[in-house]
């Protein structure tokens, strides 16, 4: 499973249960489309690139969920204390993400012993999801995925193998600390399927057993942007490396192995009982993901996530003019701010922007 990068621009968004349900239903198909509330005016162009600035608290509508308190650790707002709240601006956007990676599960169950010499199961992971809502630097998404992995060993001289599938889906809460970094937490109910086989000389056919059970992963982690492509007017694709850790709960799967016989085989085989498999245990996941973002109209109120081209035009026209005079081609990709580069380090203007790093 891969945590999902925030593919949307943070904006205050009131909560609504019907809207939430509708959005969740849509987003399970992989795409979200949400009506954006009126966003505040963008901050001044020279606002520093810092973690999500807290929005002035606004009294929620009577029928909506209370808005979360402002982030105490956030950077001070760029608006003066006496200013009225900026007029919200309508914006529409969608955001989806997908990724692949590896899941590492610690399985201490004795039912796993016949199939591995270590208490570790490595699974390949595919995942996808979509955003449901945003609230300042906080956002909520729904993501689902499929983990598949196998382990093989010998059990008292017999070849043994265990294949485990995990289909999961659940909500994911994210908090953007920087444009290139966010942290998240997730609760993912899952359905687990395990198939065990044992190839022993006492039977011409391999012995096998399979079963389903429930699972629940509680995990948290962080995502780091590697690079992104696109600009403010078009879709933005951002590429992430994600690390996650947590604990997975799972039910027990009985492992009663019996040879797989053909339909015309008259023999009746009893079962060879192994210890039940309990896949509960610590988990870790490393993955790579891509998130796609598209603003339908309007712009972002958050200077951190506005496209670089827009910030460039607002901040330093003369610098852009100078760059036009340089015989260099247009950059099609952008480094994240934390990416080390000797060229960046030699540019005083970029060094100043880099001072906004945490």
């Amino acid at each position, binding site marked *: 499973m891969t945590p999902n990068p925030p593919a949307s621009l943070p904006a205050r968004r009131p909560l609504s249960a019907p809207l939430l349900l509708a959005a969740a239903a849509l987003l399970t198909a992989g795409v979200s489309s949400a009506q954006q509330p009126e966003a505040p005016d963008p901050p001044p162009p020279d606002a520093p690139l810092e973690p999500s600035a807290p929005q002035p608290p606004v009294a929620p509508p009577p029928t909506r969920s209370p808005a979360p308190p402002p982030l105490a650790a956030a950077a001070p707002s760029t608006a003066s204390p006496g200013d009225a709240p900026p007029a919200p601006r309508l914006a529409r956007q969608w955001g989806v993400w997908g990724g692949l990676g590896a899941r590492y599960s610690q399985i201490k169950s004795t039912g796993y012993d016949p199939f591995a010499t270590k208490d570790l199961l490595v699974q390949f992971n595919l995942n996808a999801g979509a955003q449901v809502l945003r609230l300042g630097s906080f956002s909520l998404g729904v993501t689902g995925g499929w983990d598949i992995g196998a382990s093989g060993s010998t059990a*008292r001289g017999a070849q043994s193998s265990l294949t485990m599938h995990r289909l999961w889906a659940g909500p994911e809460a994210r908090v953007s600390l920087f444009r290139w970094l966010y942290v998240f937490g997730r609760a993912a109910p899952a359905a687990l399927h395990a198939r065990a086989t044992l190839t022993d000389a006492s039977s011409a056919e391999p012995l096998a057993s399979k079963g389903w059970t429930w699972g629940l992963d509680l995990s948290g982690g962080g995502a780091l942007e590697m690079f992104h492509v696109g600009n403010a007017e078009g879709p933005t694709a951002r590429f992430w490396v994600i690390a996650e850790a947590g604990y997975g709960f799972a039910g027990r799967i009985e492992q009663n192995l019996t040879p797989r016989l053909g339909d015309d085989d008259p023999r009746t085989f009893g079962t060879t009982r192994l210890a039940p498999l309990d896949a509960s245990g610590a988990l870790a996941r490393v993955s790579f993901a891509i998130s796609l973002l598209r603003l339908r109209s309007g712009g972002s109120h958050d200077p951190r996530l506005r496209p670089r081209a827009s910030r460039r035009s607002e901040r330093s026209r003369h610098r852009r003019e100078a760059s036009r005079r340089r015989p260099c081609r247009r950059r099609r990709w952008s480094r994240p701010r934390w990416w080390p580069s000797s060229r960046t380090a030699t540019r005083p203007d970029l060094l100043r922007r880099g001072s906004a790093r945490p």
Partner: protein
Amino acid sequence: MKNRKAWLAAAGLSLACASCGGRSPDWDTSVQTSRAPLGARSSIVLLDAPAERALMIAVDGDLKAIPVAVPIGRNLPSTGGAAITPDGARALVLCRGDVPRKSSKDQPPALFVLDSDEQRVSARYELSDPLSALTVDPESRFAIASAGLDDSTFVSNPNELIVVDLSQPPSAQNPVALTLRSFGGRPERVDFTPSLSLPGGKHRLLVVQTDRDLALLDLEDLSRPDITVKLTGGASAVSPAGFAVTDGDPATGDSARLAVRLQGDPNVVIVDFLPPAPDDASGVPFRPTPNIVGLAAPASDLAFLRTDGGLRLGALVPAAKELSLIEPATGAVAHVDLGASLEHIALVTEAAGGADTGGDVALLWSASSASIAFVALGNTVGKPYKSVQLVPLPEPVSAVLDVPAPRTDIKVLAGASGQRFFVLDLPSRTVSPLLARAGVDLTLSPDGQRVWVTQRNTPNLASIDFATIHPQNLLLDRPVGSVLDIARRDGGRALVVVHPQGSIGLSILDARNPSLLDAREYAAVLAGELP
């Protein structure tokens, strides 16, 4: 950047530590298929020495196996060291433990008693020494641990015996470690006698045959010293080859006696039990007194027989083709000409209808002569026997199997070639030959109704019902190692066929009506039930 690397390194280290746990070492052990399974009354016992456990498998009414793994100790002897009590209720497993013991966590040697019906360890007797030979009392009360082939400690005492009273729980007085008084010999065979009317009351004796003498232990009071019976008065050592014992005959006033035949020696030693000498301070209430009786040639088997003239010791002398009848009190010898070299003797009086004739009926057979004989020792007029009936067979008999009750009137004679066996009906004295392929093994059912015929490492199996002598052949899908006929939970009987391939396979059939249609198969049995 350094902090980020440090976090990544810490996360990787945490993951590695979390996943470094290993599995139970039992899964890395191999399965030993060379040790034959044990058939108790209502379950079979598969000894899984590498995993330090015994798998007890009972059978339900629908032929479904009910396996239960029970822990046993370490270091099971490679051969022997395990047995079923004659009543079938318990399995005894001798474990040598950790040798040598280096810490308090190391296992001591112990005798494990497994209850067949309840499928659990019912008792565990710690032993003072790691011994590897086990002898079980025919009356299922005692077990004797003695030195065996696996005993290879730095220093060992071959004359040490450990007597376990299975009817008593473990305590400071049970088991009892004994050291036999030795005149240079070491134990080679341990036997139990039935209860004997000896001076001082009823006693059961433990008879220990060494390579040069005989030692007697009073099982009723193990604190008494053992008594060594020297078998020769000369300088040359003789070895005991076998013995017979009798409780005497109250009708004729005969007392209990013990007779010993000697290896390669034409003499027979008859031991009388007399009251102790007045100056005997040992506390033993009897005094064995040996008497030597000379025969024409070495005896191959002994048995005490009832005749009209009283109790006689019957000694088979194959070289002379005769049965010598020795009057125990006087040593007088009468000779019965058999007409064939017969080596073994068994009493079949009741089954052969000789109980009301006043004398015993003996069945004689030989592994070298293709005949058997019935010797009736009833009414004797001018000769020491009533009749000798010689029955020729197509081939010699290698073994005589005693069919359990209620069919004690039948004996199964195994041919020496392995290609024939015979069902001997004692009342009618008929011998029904049955033909088989070479190398068959015969297994009697404990309920005495049938015999199972198998051929090792082939899938052939046959059942022969003693009521009809009808063989029912079955062809299994896997080679057969051994068969065990046990009681089912529903009161029926089940045949458990053990296939010694891989992690052991099983085929379970209805023993009374064997059929592959309702048989139930199992595979990788020793891979299951591990913790």
